[in-house]
């Protein structure tokens, strides 16, 4: 176990934190304990190969060369890099971001033992395997994830994992079995070589190269990430998962994920991430693109547990991520679920472009910030097609000196007739030094669409309470039932494998939000 000093923090907080009446003690303690005990703060000692510090065209070329990329890809990166040089960091979020020294970090770090890409998992450096084993991510195919038992999980339920360590993918499990079903699941560097036609067609088609400062940076320097292609009519036989681990110091992680769900296919994708405890900040700027074609369905779930920094606000990951899904054809469906507990600063808006008729997007989020963490997160639902549907459920919990902002956009274009959106944002403040904010944008450009937005820091639905009271519950019980039921709804949107981890992380009752 790491030599953390979480106990001291908790004691200190216990004495000083004024908690208002109605906030469940357990909730407070759970939130506090999460900050003090970052479980994944240890470091793997492993020999690394770094590219020179800093960022310029040579580094971009070097990354491209290390990945053995074709010429078009190198040019694509260079185009992005040139563009990025004329851009500025976004300043509109409710975040206070200290200046980032882009020339003071490494853009490429790879374990020396990965000089030759291992042909199978048996050849992977045992140290790396150990690292993932310690994180609870076994990279052996015969094993299934620990803790997944019970009636809901069929015996031997499998999860295919792509493990990304700093800049490179160290291995992908169950590749052969997936290939039998026609599913391509590999690292993006591999996909660029093996499936250039798919990559060329879809890369940058959802998040354009010049989309925003961090996405453009990512386009120039992304080193690895995951690639998924599910062919028409295929229901992916197992959950797919990528586990990101930042290990090396002063190294940014820039991964790129591309998921393509062809007509009538289904895939559920999980993402997890952790990093060691350090006093300096580290940058993580990822891009995730999802393309869902006719009748396809994609579930994308994240449990974001990057190192959040210590109780003084030292260290922690800057998590500046662009995630977007394009429901390109009719009846496509995308569901984002996120549990955000880590990172010093989170800047993240998983979005859906609802282009296809009757396509739908969902966003479920629990964001917890403590100590000096800052989160500005939310979603965009852009309704372009007729009869499109979207639903947003966001829970923000803020403690310590943290700031937690929900920022969202719901846009109904003139042609998106008969569309529907429902948004609910709830915030809970624990202690009087933190902040919770809501910044929704609503743009409705036709009459037949219905848009409803609700945000509250206090009340649960009176009708539901009334219903419970009528059946003989006292107010406390009724409130507990309604609130817990609602919170569970978000957690249940997570696939089984993640629900376990998320529940352990969140284990928080929202009872205090009533009162």
């Amino acid at each position, binding site marked *: 176990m790491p030599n953390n000093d979480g106990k001291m923090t908790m004691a200190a907080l216990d004495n000083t934190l004024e908690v208002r009446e109605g906030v469940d003690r357990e909730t407070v303690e759970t939130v506090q304990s999460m900050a003090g005990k970052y479980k994944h703060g240890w470091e793997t000692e492993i020999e690394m190969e770094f590219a020179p510090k800093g960022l310029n065209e040579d580094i971009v070329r070097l990354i491209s060369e290390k990945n053995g990329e074709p010429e078009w890809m190198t040019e694509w990166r260079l185009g992005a890099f040139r563009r990025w040089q004329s851009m500025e960091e976004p300043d509109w979020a409710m975040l206070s971001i200290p200046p980032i020294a882009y020339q003071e970090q490494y853009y490429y770090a790879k374990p020396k033992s990965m000089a030759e890409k291992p042909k199978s998992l048996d050849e992977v450096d045992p140290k790396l395997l150990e690292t993932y084993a310690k994180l609870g991510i076994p990279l052996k195919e015969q094993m299934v994830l620990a803790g997944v038992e019970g009636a809901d999980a069929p015996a031997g339920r499998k999860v295919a994992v792509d493990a990304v360590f700093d800049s490179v993918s160290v291995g992908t499990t169950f590749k052969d079995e997936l290939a039998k079903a026609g599913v391509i699941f590999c690292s993006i560097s591999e996909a660029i070589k093996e499936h250039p036609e798919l990559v060329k067609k879809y890369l940058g088609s959802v998040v354009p190269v010049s989309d925003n400062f961090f996405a453009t940076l990512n386009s120039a320097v992304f080193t690895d990430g995951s690639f998924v292609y599910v062919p028409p009519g295929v229901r992916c036989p197992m959950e797919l998962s990528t586990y990101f681990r930042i290990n090396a110091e002063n190294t940014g992680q820039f991964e790129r994920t591309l998921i393509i769900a062809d007509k009538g296919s289904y895939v559920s994708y999980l993402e997890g991430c952790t990093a060691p405890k350090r006093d300096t900040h580290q940058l993580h700027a990822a891009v995730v693109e999802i393309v869902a074609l006719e009748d396809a369905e994609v579930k994308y779930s994240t449990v974001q547990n990057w190192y959040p920094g210590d109780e003084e606000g030292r260290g922690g990951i800057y998590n500046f991520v662009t995630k977007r899904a394009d429901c390109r054809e009719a009846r496509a469906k995308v569901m984002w679920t996120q549990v955000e507990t880590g990172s010093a600063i989170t800047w993240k808006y998983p979005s859906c472009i609802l282009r296809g008729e009757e396509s739908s997007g969902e966003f479920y989020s629990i964001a917890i910030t403590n100590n000096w963490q800052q989160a500005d997160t939310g979603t965009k639902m852009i309704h372009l097609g007729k009869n499109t549907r979207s639903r947003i459920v966001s829970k923000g919990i803020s403690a310590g000196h943290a700031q937690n902002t929900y920022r969202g956009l719901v846009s109904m274009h003139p042609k998106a007739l008969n569309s529907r959106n429902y948004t609910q944002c709830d915030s809970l403040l624990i202690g*009087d030094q933190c902040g919770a904010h809501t*910044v929704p944008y*609503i743009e409705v450009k036709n009459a037949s669409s219905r848009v409803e*937005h609700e*945000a509250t820091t206090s009340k649960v639905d009176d009708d539901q309470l009334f219903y419970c009271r009528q059946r003989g519950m006292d107010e406390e019980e009724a409130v507990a039932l309604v609130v817990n039921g609602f919170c569970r709804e978000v957690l249940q949107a997570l696939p089984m494998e993640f629900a376990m981890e998320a529940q352990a992380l969140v284990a928080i009752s929202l009872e205090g939000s009533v009162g």
Partner: protein
Amino acid sequence: MTAVAKLGPRAARRAAKLEATASRLEALTLPESGEWLRRARETALARLREIGLPDRRDEYWKFTDPATLVRTDAPAAALFEITDEAMVFDAIDRLRVVFVDGVFDPDASDELEAEGLEIVRLADAGGRDIHWAQELFGALEAEGQDPVTRPLAALNTAVATDGVLIRATARVARPVSLIYRRRDPSAELALHHVVKVEPGAELTLLENGPGAARVSTVTEMCIGDGGVLHHVRAQGRDHERRAITHLFARLGEQSVLKSFTLSANGALTRNESVVWLNGKGGSAHVAGAAMGDGAFHHDDTVFITHAAPDCESRQVFKKVLRHGAVGVFQGKILVHQAAQLTDGYQISQALLLDETSQFLAKPELEIYADDVKCSHGSTSGEIDADQLFYLRARGLPEETAKGLLVLAFLAEALDEIAREDLAEEIREKLRGWVSRHR
């Protein structure tokens, strides 16, 4: 790489904005005024040069293009003769203060005297030592420039040609009514009012009339402990008028502000309200009903700051839109850490009567206190088919049924008017609009 530091895009944009502002203000001459007023105007102008005039790329103007409000000359707007109904508030006994094309008209106005009231024309005030007005004029506007700038309010402070300074020292039942008449199709109006309600006093302020081709009003309100200010405003039916209005209101302990605005038509209207609840137990209600048919762009921008504990605020905005009308709502509740036990409520709703209309909203909460009750809701949609069916099933013709549903939709905003006789005046205007715009 050259060593010369190039401006980044943001710095370059700011430089361009300030340059545009400087050239727009170049030919500007400040109105003749006495000592303290001249100083306040010059300070406001300096403030404006610093913050720059707004343009479409400003986040606060994302939904509303300020170009026609900023340009030097007001676009001409045809006069609109109203012959089919009486002017609003005509039935109310009130003290009338009339401005014609932005100029005070003493003949049409009542004597500016009443028990418990002090009323002075701004144009006469500069040379006089009126402490209470001096302390407020331009001061609340300046305070309102943070955290979001309101450059057009600073411009108004600098150039306003007239206005009234009103001080209530007792509970005054008879409303003071500001009436803006129009004669000249291209006239511009820039008025700046100061309203001071002393502790325990009460005042009702009415505003109505078409105004001018382009209207800019700033009203700075200071409500002392236990004071009450009712504000009811009806913006005229002129289709081509453009207007920018600002209310800045500072409330003391246990004081009350109730402000309601009715807007029907107008090419462009932006009403900004900035309210500070600075004393314990204050209450601020800001509400509006807007009906737009055709080329109508209406923007309610509200910023309420809870700086003291135990205060209550409500924002209630309803818009009925058809034939391409655009409704905008930008509302914010900011709760400081000290403002425990805040009760903040905000609702913005649009009823879109056809497929061409738009509703754009940004209902924001920014909360730094943990024991608060804050909520906001925003909805948009067409007339509920079930409700329409219910009324039709009871024998009402479709148009009548729709009219009833529109009135019912707007009713919640009208509930914010405390005086029933004033509410009835407004209701009458709504009925008129609904019957004309079938």
